[in-house]
């Protein structure tokens, strides 16, 4: 099959020494940042985006993908040892993992998380490689109206389908869409919402917004909670190796988690969190040791961690094949592509196959690196958890501003950073989700472009948006994803959806 050929060529690209180095830097940074409580992969990629202006596109994209995978691995360490998930997709891991650590079984918990992540990452990345060409073929028949419908679906699922409030999700989305209007209109060259300020003509930088919302907003929010007493880091006692019993109980959850997580990540349905919750529920139902659930069942760590990594790979399917980001991290990676003038989508597979397949192949390599980084070197990462909060957050803000200053050392840009940081803080206080703002900012202009193209072709006839079968089906799904949660919440079943909230990664 041609896929193997492409994958082999990709491996040749990925195995170049410089690309291996970028992958290694990526996974190391990703793990380190994933381990730190409070910062997720979205923020790490946003921070590093300006730093990589000088690098070549292939190398820095490989690095970003490594950061994404590494962040997913690192998050499990935090939730197992600290009970403070570093990223939202690891919340479920904390349920059983932290109990295991308190019972002195932290080693096997970390091992099953790492090996499960590896198994899931491997299978899901291969699945990505095999599914991508089919979706690319499918996407070639997509016209502007189908793309527009797809983006509407992504808007709905990211903002209002999950989370505890349709209203707040939609408000976040429209804040993002409003910000997206700022700057010069792509089709007519007219300045919109820039109020004569030259700095605004280029629009709002995605990285500035993401760094401000995630890093500064989060720091302000944590600081405003006051001191809640010291958090206890569970020491890793005993061996990190799993017993035969642990292996026997882990391998099925790994595989089940992978097959739950990957499709969910691949659909334009938002974050990795949903898959982890479903996997946890499945393991709880299927386990032979129901009494252990809630007290540290290894299945409850193995399944969700696998699901988490599988959906991270799944997210790359719509991103690479359709140019459609479904999570905040994917949105920022899309900004990374755009920084080099590349637009992910079916055309990229045709025009730049080396880059795409090199990226996919480097994910396989990154997975092996992560296994090595996370098992023997686990003690090193645990030390990161002991950095006192004042220094940790002072350092986070230092690096957060560093990226913006490196891109554009102007008072105006830093002022925007501060203003969006305050906005991010206020939104957190009132429970507004952050991811829809970032996704709205980056996807808004693309959606507008497709809409206006579709309507230009039809000479202003709006019904054309619904007359293509694919577009109609996508819009119906989007409408269902909007209405069904509203009904569920009205009937008081909202807690389930609130738990599935796609908050930031």
């Amino acid at each position, binding site marked *: 099959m041609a896929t193997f050929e492409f994958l082999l060529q990709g491996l040749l690209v990925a195995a170049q020494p410089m690309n291996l180095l970028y992958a290694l830097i990526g996974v190391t940074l990703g793990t380190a940042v994933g381990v730190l409580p409070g910062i997720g992969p979205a923020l790490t990629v946003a921070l590093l985006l*300006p*730093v990589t*202006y*000088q690098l070549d596109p292939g190398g820095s994209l490989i690095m970003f993908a490594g950061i994404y995978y590494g962040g997913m691995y690192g998050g499990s360490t935090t939730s197992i040892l600290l009970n403070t998930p570093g990223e939202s997709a690891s919340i479920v891991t904390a349920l059983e993992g932290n109990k295991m650590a308190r019972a002195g079984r932290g080693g096997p918990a970390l091992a099953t998380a790492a090996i499960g992540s590896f198994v899931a990452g491997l299978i899901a990345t291969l699945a990505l490689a095999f599914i991508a060409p089919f979706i690319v073929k499918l996407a070639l028949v997509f016209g502007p109206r189908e793309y527009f419908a797809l983006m509407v679906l992504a808007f709905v699922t990211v903002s209002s389908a999950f989370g505890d*409030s349709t*209203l*707040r999700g*939609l*408000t976040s989305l*429209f804040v993002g*869409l*409003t910000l997206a*209007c700022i700057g010069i*209109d792509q*089709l*007519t060259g*007219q300045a*919109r*919402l820039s109020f004569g300020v030259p700095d605004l003509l280029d629009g709002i930088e995605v990285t500035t917004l993401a760094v401000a919302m995630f890093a*500064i907003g989060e*720091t*302000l929010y944590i*600081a*405003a*909670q*006051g*001191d809640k007493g010291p958090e206890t880091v569970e020491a890793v006692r005993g061996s990190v190796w799993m017993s035969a019993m642990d292996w026997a109980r882990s391998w099925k959850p790994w595989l089940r988690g992978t097959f739950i997580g990957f499709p969910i990540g691949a659909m334009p349905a938002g974050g990795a969190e949903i898959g982890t919750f479903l996997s946890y529920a499945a393991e709880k139902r299927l386990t032979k040791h129901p009494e252990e659930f809630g007290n540290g069942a290894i299945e409850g760590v193995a399944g969700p961690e696998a699901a988490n990594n599988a959906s991270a790979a799944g997210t790359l399917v719509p991103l690479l094949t359709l140019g459609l980001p479904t999570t905040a991290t994917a949105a920022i990676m899309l900004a990374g592509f755009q920084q080099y003038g590349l637009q992910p989508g079916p055309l990229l597979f045709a025009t730049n196959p080396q880059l795409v397949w090199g990226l996919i192949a480097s994910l396989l390599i990154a997975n092996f690196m992560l296994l090595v980084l996370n098992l023997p070197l686990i003690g090193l990462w645990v030390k990161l958890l002991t950095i006192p*909060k*004042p*220094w940790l*957050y*002072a*350092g986070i*803000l*230092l*690096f957060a*501003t*560093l990226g913006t*200053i*490196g891109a554009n*050392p102007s*008072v105006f840009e*830093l*002022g925007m*950073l*501060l203003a969006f*940081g*305050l906005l991010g*803080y206020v939104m957190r*206080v*009132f*429970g507004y989700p952050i991811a829809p703002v970032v996704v709205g900012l980056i996807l808004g202009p693309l959606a*507008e472009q497709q*809409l*206006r193209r579709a*309507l*230009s072709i*039809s*000479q*202003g006839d709006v019904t054309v948006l619904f007359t293509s079968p694919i577009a109609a089906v996508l819009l119906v799904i989007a409408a269902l994803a909007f209405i069904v949660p509203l009904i569920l919440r009205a009937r008081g079943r909202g807690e389930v959806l609130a738990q599935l909230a796609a908050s930031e990664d």
Partner: protein
Amino acid sequence: MNKGNTPSVETRRPDRAALIIAAVLAVIAGVIFWDVSRLTGLAGYSQVGPTTVPYVIACCLIGLAIWTAAEGIRGDFAEREPQQFGPVIWIVAGLAAQMLLLNILGFSIATGILFALTAGGFGKRRLWLTIPIGIAFSFFVWVIFAKLLQLSLPAGPFERLFF
């Protein structure tokens, strides 16, 4: 560790906060209407120009404002935890100081002050100790990123002592 300058302020009237948010959303919508109405609607033959999408967004914002206000009046708007504003002021002061001082004093000093004030927000209030630590650390970062990675970070008098 963290004492906080002001006692924790509890917002007791959730209604009012929701109404303020609704008002802000409505004002944003108004600004969009005002700004976009000045654009000539270069719509061409499709009646869809640069003004169409902003108008749609503004209409949706007004809808969301009404919805928010309704939830606020019924009192089922978001619950929230009490916030301490002392630490927030420390950190915002740090960011503002960095913003204003960056191009005058250079990266290390401006960012060092940000570093110290952020640590202050989390309870490390001994500025005579934290500012030098912050400047030293920022200088170290400056050397790595500006000299090794060729990122353009503004230099000030402190950096010029060395390079």
